[in-house]
């Protein structure tokens, strides 16, 4: 499951369960264990008006930091 999360862009636990062909509850519990071990991050989000839990791999978090740095630099350049 971790390999699946690492390959994918951020996805909801529901999508992950679908991709893995496994029961939602079991996937939810497994993701919680992975999050407790620091291997993935889980954050709330709203998709199609519904609150969902989004699972992100360490790779996704690294890309997000890069995107944040880039956005900051663009803002800085625009201000100068």
């Amino acid at each position, binding site marked *: 499951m971790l390999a699946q999360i*690492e*390959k*994918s*862009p951020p996805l909801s636990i529901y999508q992950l369960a679908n991709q893995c062909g496994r029961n939602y509850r079991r996937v939810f519990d497994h993701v919680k264990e992975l999050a407790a071990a620091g291997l993935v991050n889980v954050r709330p989000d709203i998709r199609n008006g519904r609150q969902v839990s989004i699972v992100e*791999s360490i*790779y*996704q978090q*690294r*890309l*997000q*930091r*890069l*995107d944040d*740095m*880039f*956005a900051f*630099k663009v803002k800085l350049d625009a201000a100068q």
Partner: protein
Amino acid sequence: MQLSEAAARLLALLDPEGVLIGGICGAVYGVERFTRGVDIAADLDPEVIMQRLQHAGIDSNVRRSSEPGDLSWGVHGQFENIDFQVLPASETGISSGMFEIRAGLRVADIRDFITSKCIAAGQQDMHDIAAICLMQPELEAFSRDCAAHYRCLATLESWLDDRRLQQRYLS
């Protein structure tokens, strides 16, 4: 548009031949450094690359070189105000078929990435390799051999000895 989104959309246009190299690839492997553009390696003719980009409404141009040590071509452009370049995979040390899918992006295999950095051999490139070696010591011997082959071992060693880099990446 975010940098990673631009990378994903450009990669989709160059699928399946394109793989991410450069700063974004480094970020995926854990290197924390600012980058302002998208670098892609592809085993395609530059004309084919420009055609695919043109179909998506993206203007680009090719710069060719016959100078020794230079890449023979590079396709450059801007996508949503983000600079990008597509470089010849074979000349940048990237083997087609050797890649990883990470966070939905097709990134160069880590050893190919190190090779591409040794070919480029700039300070920033050696910084990136040293950071990877500090995070994954099992790659240090390979990186040293590669750097020695491309005559940039001294620069890599100076980065490997850098205290600040060690503090940042040694865990």
